[in-house]
């Protein structure tokens, strides 16, 4: 007897996906429109100014938030991207990363706070996050495409699913690690729950939350190529073109641009994290 006809796991999943697609279409089109809107705005902001202005802005950001070294790296690295003719693609990738990270944080930080406040929630949240992180990214590309068709929107959604967990985890951890005496002190002065969260817990947990944001950005960036497979565009496309056409030069240049972008984002967000840690720990 074939048990697969008895309990057909894959089949059931397919049924659910199909049902959702047929009945929840309105929801997916709302999501799709929202994401498209965000992508459009970020792209417009990043791609409208002349390239040299943008490079100057990125260099200034690196200078003020990170260090002189990072600023020099940014100046040279981004000029190189421009020189390789990959500027527009890089900005479109950055727009995609930015959009997914913003959504990931808007969802992830509140989910982390909720998990920290309730053990019950955390007990459900933790295996869910494990599942999201360990399921191979290719697998959820399929429903993403089914729900949102090809293009950048399923790219953002897939990236979001993959990069959300560290934001939740580290927000949860940061808040749970706030020393008991600090919470007692806040309470003893008559804090409401909201004041407790905004004036004590979140600020004290901020360095840890910043580390989560950094990880979220890095994971989002690591999804660029995979998202390229479903037509997200940007540098992912370039690398994939290198693979499918066996063009080492194209693939390598696309890869280099991704690395430069990654280092820039990592150093800047880490510097933000260190600044908040310094304030907290001296």
């Amino acid at each position, binding site marked *: 007897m074939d048990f697969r006809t008895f309990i057909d796991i894959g089949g059931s999943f397919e049924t659910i996906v199909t049902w959702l697609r047929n009945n929840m279409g309105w929801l997916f089109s709302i999501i799709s429109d929202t994401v498209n809107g965000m992508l459009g705005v970020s792209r417009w902001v990043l791609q409208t100014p002349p390239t040299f202005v943008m490079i100057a802005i990125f260099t200034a950001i690196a200078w003020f938030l990170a260090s002189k070294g990072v600023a020099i790296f940014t100046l040279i690295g981004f000029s190189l991207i421009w020189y390789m003719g990959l500027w527009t693609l890089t900005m479109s990738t950055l727009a995609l990363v930015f959009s997914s990270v913003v959504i990931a944080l808007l969802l992830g930080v509140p989910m982390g706070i909720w998990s920290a406040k309730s053990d019950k929630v955390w007990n459900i949240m933790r295996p869910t996050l494990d599942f999201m992180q360990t399921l191979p990214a290719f697998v959820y590309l399929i429903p993403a495409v089914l729900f949102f068709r090809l293009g950048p929107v399923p790219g953002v959604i897939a990236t979001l699913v993959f990069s959300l967990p560290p934001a939740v985890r580290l927000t949860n951890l940061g808040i749970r690690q706030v020393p008991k*005496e*600090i919470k007692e002190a806040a309470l003893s*002065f*008559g804090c409401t729950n909201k004041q407790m969260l905004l004036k004590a817990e979140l*600020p004290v947990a*901020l360095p840890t939350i910043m580390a989560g944001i950094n990880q979220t950005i890095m994971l989002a960036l690591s999804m660029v190529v995979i998202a390229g497979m479903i037509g997200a565009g940007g540098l992912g496309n370039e690398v994939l073109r290198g693979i499918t056409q066996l063009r080492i030069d194209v693939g390598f240049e696309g890869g280099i641009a991704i690395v430069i972008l990654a280092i820039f984002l990592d150093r800047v967000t880490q510097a933000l994290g260190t600044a*908040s840690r310094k304030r907290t720990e001296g």
Partner: protein
Amino acid sequence: MALIQVNDLYKIFGPNPKRAIPMINKGISKGEILKKTGCTIAINGATFAIERKETFVVMGLSGSGKSTFIRCLNRLIEPTAGEILIDGEDVMKMDQDKLREVRRYKMSMVFQNFGLLPHRNVVGNVEFGLEISNMDKEERRKKALDAIKLVGLDGFEESLTSELSGGMQQRVGLARALANDPEILLMDEAFSALDPLIRTQMQDELLELQARLHKTIVFITHDLDEALKLGDRIAILGPDGRVRQIGTPEEILAQPADEYVKRFVQNVDRTRVITAATVGGRAATITYPREDLQAAIRAMERNKTSSVFVTDADRHLKGIVTIDAAVALQKKGEKDLASIIKNDVYTTSPSTPISDLLATAIATGYPIAMIDDNGHFQGAVSRAAIIAEVNKGYEGSDTEMPQTLSDLQDALQDGE
């Protein structure tokens, strides 16, 4: 009416804690109840009253329920049973809004490990409580700066708390509590995390502050010396979470209520607690210039003393007259005392511990005069009284007392 009245307070940790109370009343031990029900008894039927403007110290060893007790007062920990009346209002019956109001305006807490917010600087921490109660920015900044001055932290307003030493951090904690101008200060082992030297200094400063501010302070400590130094009254908690004795430092030293308290206090240096006022008393005086030589001699004869203190009509001390000088003056046929009033007599405040008087008592030939803050003569302590009191402390202790040579010789002979 007492400011804080605690009636029959219980705190029991564990599942379904109320069922442990009848077991306690049946006299079943703490350990057995833990084994049977999984409940830990932290406070076991505490009843007492804390008066306005007194410093009430709760002292006990580790695990005796001190932190639990103080947290019941502002309900950071929910008591299991009993009553906590503050100004007649039961804290345990208050809803969240009312409770928050009490925490904001009536009592503030100081913590053992300071509990400061690491992302705020000193003034940011100090104004925290005022910010929570939605005071406007300018006013709370002003109050915070006042509180900072009060604890002697001026100049450090903008410092990060992590850059400060432990003693300074606790000053921030104290300033934060004082900024709200609460009637009640709750201090849970506030100085226990500090070095001994800094700790003594903070104790002195707290005493000074209290002399000016007159708060009602509930102070928790596991250190008897600290309790004796700071407390107007002390409650001693036993290891079973029961209050063993409540009394002034001197009462607790002089009449320990049970064996537990007695063992607790036996190693205390009594001379640092017993004050001049306790061993001293009234002393013969004459008023100058209203009274003359004759009056002085009569006063000494009547009191069987060899000297008499001289005060003015307002009871300000002018000096001392000895019997030798008086007799010599009489022989010369003079009556005015002015030439024989000596002012090399030592003075002290009635609250000085006798340990501070011992050296003086041995060196001087006169009694030591007690003078209050207004300069009024309050009586005197004789050197015999001080030495007798010091000796009392050694009775029954293991300290080896000196013996006379003849006693030693006798002992040697007996041994042969």
